[in-house]
């Protein structure tokens, strides 16, 4: 069972539909007990980083425990941003701090939000992006983005280069929306399910 963590940050149903389409058993949940028994975890989310406050309050410990236990974890959009130290969108809200760096807004002069289909430049060896062609198109909708770091396995360009996907051991994050990225996105989710 894959737990889709519901912390009031919207767009849960799209992720759930995509995973159900792949034939996976899912549970949309905000219960620590369900997270504890799940085989894999997905933290979706669109919108404001301050929503991560509710994630921090009740689910931080169970999520970090699951990650420590080596359960595959996928953060999508704000769910990926949460894996970093924090975001200038809500400086008082802590991130999980599993990846170095902070999320920040696109520079002034760049049309924001970044909405639409953009390409990903894929590095070698990613398990999440196995079989995805370089320069594949994925769907984005966001105003803040994470820096390129050592764990970046794919990047996109918009007002500079940013992290499209990060990966370390069984912890994965994507800034784009695989559940809305057509067959490419479904393949990425399938890779995650197959881990």
């Amino acid at each position, binding site marked *: 069972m894959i737990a889709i963590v519901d912390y009031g940050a919207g767009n849960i*149903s799209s992720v759930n539909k995509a995973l159900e389409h792949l034939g996976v058993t899912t549970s949309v949940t905000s219960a620590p007990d369900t997270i504890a028994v799940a085989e894999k975890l997905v933290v979706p989310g*669109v*919108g404001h980083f301050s929503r991560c406050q509710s994630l921090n309050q009740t689910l931080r410990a169970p999520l970090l425990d699951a990650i420590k236990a080596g359960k595959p974890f996928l953060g999508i959009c704000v769910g990926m941003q949460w894996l970093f130290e924090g975001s200038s969108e809500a400086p008082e809200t802590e991130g999980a701090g599993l990846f170095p760096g902070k999320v920040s807004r696109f520079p002034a002069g760049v049309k924001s*939000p970044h*909405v*639409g*289909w953009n390409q990903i430049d894929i590095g070698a060896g990613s398990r999440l992006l196995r079989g995805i062609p370089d320069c594949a198109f994925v769907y984005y909708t966001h105003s803040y983005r994470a820096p390129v770091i050592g764990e970046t396995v794919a990047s996109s360009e*918009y007002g500079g280069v940013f992290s499209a996907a990060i990966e370390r051991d069984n912890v994965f994050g994507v800034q784009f929306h695989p559940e809305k*990225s057509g067959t490419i996105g*479904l393949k990425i989710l399938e890779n995650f399910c197959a881990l």
Partner: protein
Amino acid sequence: MPSERLTKRIIACLDVDAGRVVKGVQFLELRDAGDPGELARAHAAAGADEIVLLDITATAEGRKTLIETVHRTAREIFVPFAVGGGIRTLADAAQVFEAGADKISINSAAVAHPGLIAEIAERFGSQAVVVAIDARRGRRPAEAAEVYVAGGREATGRNAIAWAHEVEERGAGEILLTSMDRDGTGAGFDCELTAAIAATVSIPVIASGGAGTPQHFLEVFTRGRADAALAASIFHFGTHALAGLKQTLVEAGIPMRWPC
């Protein structure tokens, strides 16, 4: 410094009445040419970057059908999916999101109650709120275009450019701009009006009304500065029309999700 790698979007619009797609449906390969779910899936497979379902049902019973239609259609597609038509309240919007829409489009209700834009944006995020603006200018300059509601039947006295600025301030994530002058003519998008709105706001502008040929799309993406273009009838000539359109635009240097 806009990135050239963010593609321009081609959005397919399905007009739906009481659960059936109502106009210009000529997909020969479909079992049921009027089924929104099947048509949406066919458009997505053919390369549409986004699907808009526009409910033109007038009756109350029809509204119930819409929620079922959205639910059924959302299961079929894994590209962004927006729903418009008849959404008047936060509760209406919530129902449509629950049924599986990624975005809602509001028009008359936003003009009548501008606070609704922020209400929906605060609950579901700005990325989920498209404000549709129906504008008409006749022979006047783009700066004088006026906002219409009720399917283009009622003038509001509002200036389209000022309204575009206001909806952005109130939290809209995108603007769907329809030229009433061009809608249904196939004579091309209103590039002057689209460019004037795009210069006013920093959120994406989707141009609509007047699509007839690939050249029209090229013009609205260059001269019109549109981020996306929407059309209904042009895509109903078959899946090849969409592929041909994208191919033509790629060859003209427009960034497109193609092949996809």
